């Protein structure tokens, strides 16, 4: 009781409030600036806080607050700028709502859901932290691997209407997750001799390429804005969204609890929780056709867990000293630097810190959600800006963010390569969500399952009840989803007629994707044949599966007519007259970016792209002036964010390297 009172007593001090507001301000900055993640922000903040704030209570609480509330505001770029970043699940549902003119309403909805998720996460943290240890100890590699397999089963939920395409995409995602050093044999798999690929394909570069750039290119080709012309903005509209959110309170509680559960398991990874929650949510919903078309339920599935998982992450961090999320590592570092031991004794010896963290999470969530709601009415108007102007800054910023993740030039071809694949998949209605899910889960499944087998043996793994339960659950869900997926998708009447008339097999254009998958699968199979057993099994099995599924799709597709209703955002620009005019310009701008980046430097390529896009696409009344503005914004970001704050070392431009190599 004394500890609780001591914690609450801090609320009466100005020191606490100054630290709290500083933490919330930093969290807001990290949420709003693409490229500035919580991890990076914490890396910058920890030495400053630990050496300038002497009181451990304030220092630790401040860091925990930054970490826990950072993600609340990061929906703004998704909704107002049409930039999905790594929040693809939210984007899938928010994008159609914004296109219908509900940007402000969507933001209001999301803030309330995120706020509730954050509050539930903080509350559960307080309630279960004293009793959590036995639960966490139950989750070893086998169980985490099994959760990964359970997640893979969710591919079925994301493959509505195109089960084979969806599963093939998921398998493709898992297959490319095997790129990198095998942790079991040390063999470099599919790295082409590049040191930078040894850690695998970078998540941000891959996902931004696959999702963000195709969406932006599509929107550019429509020559429209993110929001429709009849969109309504203003605070009233935001609060309308908030009221709608409250109607989903049961779902919010359910998925917030799921977020805490998933967040509390070290090794699951923050990126996967939204997808798992989305998959589970879809599985438990009767009307599955609503998803991917602007479903509020879908937004709840995504956002409630995103926010509540932070409370989950805090549980093993404080109770065991095991950080469950990347940014929480810094909280442990700070605790040790302050001489505060995480672990069971932490709860009894430092109840004041636990209480103050919980209170700060509640207040931080509430404050950021309030700020978001009060400003969103205005900020949502950005969705009416001419898209070439937005795109001029966001596209190069996305590429530089991807580069910043790896600090190597290989990020650029990865982003652009996956952008090409993403665009083709989007165009030909191959669902991309299963690919992303497979990519995130592939490593979790392979590494944890093989570690479990090496620790306990195959028989030992099969004797673990929780593991078996999760795997059986995964199989049952996969079968269930396949059945309902097929049942829910009867062929359109005309197609059914075609099928009855047994039309001859005909080549379909979307078979190019299947053909590409077959080639990739074959490449991985051939490559895997040289690896040792532990490194070979996973890519070999997945490669074979990918080839079979893609071949099946290719054959089956010849008899199908019409477009399937897949869970992904389709081509908005398909068939539009503007597409033919804009597509070559976009390609030209990408070429300009590449040429300038190779000739004088990546950062200058980004600035050139930003300056040239509005001019080339005729944005605004004075495109030249628009180009100057966007170019200046990009230059400011390059200098202020990447050079000064993140201290990025830019890759040597090819021409300069060549000149140095040949002349001097």
């Amino acid at each position, binding site marked *: 009781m004394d500890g609780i009172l001591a914690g609450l007593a801090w609320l009466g001090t100005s020191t606490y409030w100054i630290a709290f507001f500083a933490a919330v301000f930093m969290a807001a900055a990290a949420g709003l600036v693409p490229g500035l993640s919580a991890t990076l922000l914490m890396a910058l903040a920890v030495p400053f806080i630990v050496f300038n704030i002497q009181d451990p209570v304030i220092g630790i609480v401040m860091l925990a607050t930054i970490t826990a509330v950072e993600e609340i505001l990061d929906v703004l770029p998704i909704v107002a700028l049409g930039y999905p970043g790594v929040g693809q699940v939210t984007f899938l549902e928010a994008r159609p709502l914004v296109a219908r003119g509900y940007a402000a309403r969507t933001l209001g909805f999301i803030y309330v859901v995120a706020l509730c998720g954050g509050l539930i996460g903080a509350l559960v943290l307080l309630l279960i932290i004293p009793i959590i240890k036995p639960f*966490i100890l139950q989750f070893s590699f086998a169980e985490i691997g099994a959760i990964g397999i359970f997640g893979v089963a969710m591919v079925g939920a994301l493959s509505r209407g195109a089960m084979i395409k969806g599963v093939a995409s998921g398998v493709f995602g898992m297959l490319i997750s095997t790129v990198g050093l095998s942790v079991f044999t040390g063999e470099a798999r599919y790295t082409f001799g590049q*040191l930078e690929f040894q850690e695998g394909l970078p998540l941000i570069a891959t996902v931004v390429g696959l999702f963000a750039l195709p969406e932006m290119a599509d929107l550019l080709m429509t020559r429209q804005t993110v929001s429709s012309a009849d969109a309504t903005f203003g605070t009233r509209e935001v609060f309308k969204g908030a009221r709608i959110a409250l109607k989903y309170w049961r779902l919010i509680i359910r998925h917030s609890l799921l977020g805490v559960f998933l967040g509390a398991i070290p090794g699951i990874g923050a990126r996967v929780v939204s997808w798992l929650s989305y998959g589970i949510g879809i599985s438990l919903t009767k009307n599955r056709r609503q998803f991917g078309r602007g479903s509020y339920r879908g937004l709840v599935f995504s956002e409630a867990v995103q926010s509540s998982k932070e409370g989950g992450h805090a549980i093993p961090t404080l109770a065991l000293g095991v950080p469950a999320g990347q940014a929480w590592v810094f909280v442990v570092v700070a605790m040790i630097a302050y001489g505060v031991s995480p672990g069971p004794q932490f709860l009894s010896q430092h109840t004041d810190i636990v209480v103050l963290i919980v209170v700060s999470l509640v207040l931080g969530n509430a404050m950021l959600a309030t700020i978001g709601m009060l400003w969103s009415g205005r900020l949502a108007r950005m969705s009416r800006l001419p898209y070439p102007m937005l795109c001029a800054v966001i596209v190069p910023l996305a590429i530089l963010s991807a580069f910043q993740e790896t600090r190597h030039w290989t990020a650029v071809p990865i982003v652009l390569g996956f952008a090409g694949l993403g665009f083709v998949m989007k165009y030909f209605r191959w669902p991309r969500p299963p690919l992303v899910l497979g990519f995130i889960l592939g490593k979790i499944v392979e590494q944890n399952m093989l570690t479990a087998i090496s620790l306990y043996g195959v028989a030992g793994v099969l004797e673990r009840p929780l593991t078996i339960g999760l795997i059986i659950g995964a199989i049952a869900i996969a079968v269930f989803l396949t059945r309902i997926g097929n049942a829910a998708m009867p062929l359109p009447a005309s197609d059914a007629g075609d099928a009855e008339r047994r039309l001859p097999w005909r080549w379909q254009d979307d078979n190019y994707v299947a053909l590409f998958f077959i080639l990739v699968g074959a490449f991985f199979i051939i490559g895997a044949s040289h690896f040792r057993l*532990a490194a070979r099994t996973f890519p070999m099995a997945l490669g074979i599966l990918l080839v079979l599924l893609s071949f099946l799709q290719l054959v089956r597709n010849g008899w199908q007519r019409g477009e399937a209703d897949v869970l992904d955002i389709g081509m908005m620009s398909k068939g539009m007259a503007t597409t033919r005019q804009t597509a070559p310009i976009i390609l030209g701008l990408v070429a300009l970016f590449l040429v300038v980046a190779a000739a004088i430097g990546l950062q200058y390529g980004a600035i050139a792209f930003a300056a040239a896009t509005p001019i080339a696409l005729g944005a605004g009344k004075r495109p030249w002036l628009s180009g100057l503005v966007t170019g200046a914004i990009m230059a400011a970001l390059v200098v202020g964010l990447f050079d000064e704050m993140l201290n990025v070392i830019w890759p040597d431009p090819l021409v300069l390297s060549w000149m140095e190599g040949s002349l001097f």
Partner: protein
Amino acid sequence: MKGTRLVLWAAMAVLTGIGLCPSVRAADIDPATYFKGKTITLVVDFKPGGGTDVQARYFAAHFGKFIPGDPRIVVTNLFPIPAGHNFVWNAKPDGLSISFLAAADVGTELIDPTAQFQSNKFEYIGAHTARDLILYVRDTVPYASLHDSKGGKVPISIALPISRPEDLSGIGLATALLSLWFDAPLKITPIAQTGSSDTLLMLERGDINGWVGGAQWYVLPKLRPGWLKSGYLKPIADMGNPDTEPHANAEISLPIPNAITWLNDDQKKIWRALVISQVLTGKALATSPNTPPAVVKILRDAYGAAFKDKDFAAGVEKIQQEPVDLIPGDKLQQMVETSLAEFKEQLPAYKALQKQIFERYVKGL
């Protein structure tokens, strides 16, 4: 048009002139002003987070004031290992790129094909921690020391990320080599790269019963209070540099002698060359090869002055949670030279031992 061409030629001539000039002329260096207004980049071989990165950021904030001219210092992360080290190796020899090393892994270039550098050619600024390497086991393991475990029935099960199975290095090599010589019942479980907190969780769950820790010797009483004192976890081999004995931590002093005392003369030579070379020091700073001696001297003097400053040293101890063990740059340079020469000499023995280690401990994984 003619004017433009003239400007272009002039620009080319100036650029060529700049390029042909050595980037730093030794004669031009004024220690008081050389670093003024410049930016030093501290390169860390790891992603942001973790001990080395946070410590480098502490240096970035506080080390500059000890260098004449108070240059700005920034941290950048280049990974995976040895990308950062390669970068500093290839950087201009002007003292503005400094590798912030977790450990001076001498000899990496002899076994890692991705290493572009020669460790003895770097200009070392100094090291400020010893590199401890201690094998711990759970209380369920009945051996008092690794040396006593000969022919034992209870396996000592440790988890290791294995990047080159036929070329174990660092922790893996040290443990496997001793186990091979002592016929110890070692069992290696390959795992993905994990932090020490995950490994402690594995120990607690009973997934493994052994653990090789570095700087954690000092942090352990904070991460898991009582584990060492109660004997829940006991150190059974000190595999660190015998020239820098670990200090007592908050719970116990190391109850066993350094592993080198268990070895015969031949084994000692091999051990020094192959293992001690990789644990010569803990955190160390090195700049690019061929940096002018005057610039290196400025940095070494600043490093020495920084650790004489009580507040700076206390800050380093606070962030790294282990005592400062200072090795001046010139001494470290000699240590690296000697160590690399020893490693080269023992390379045939290294290859033969790696084969035996692979056959016995790694092949069946």
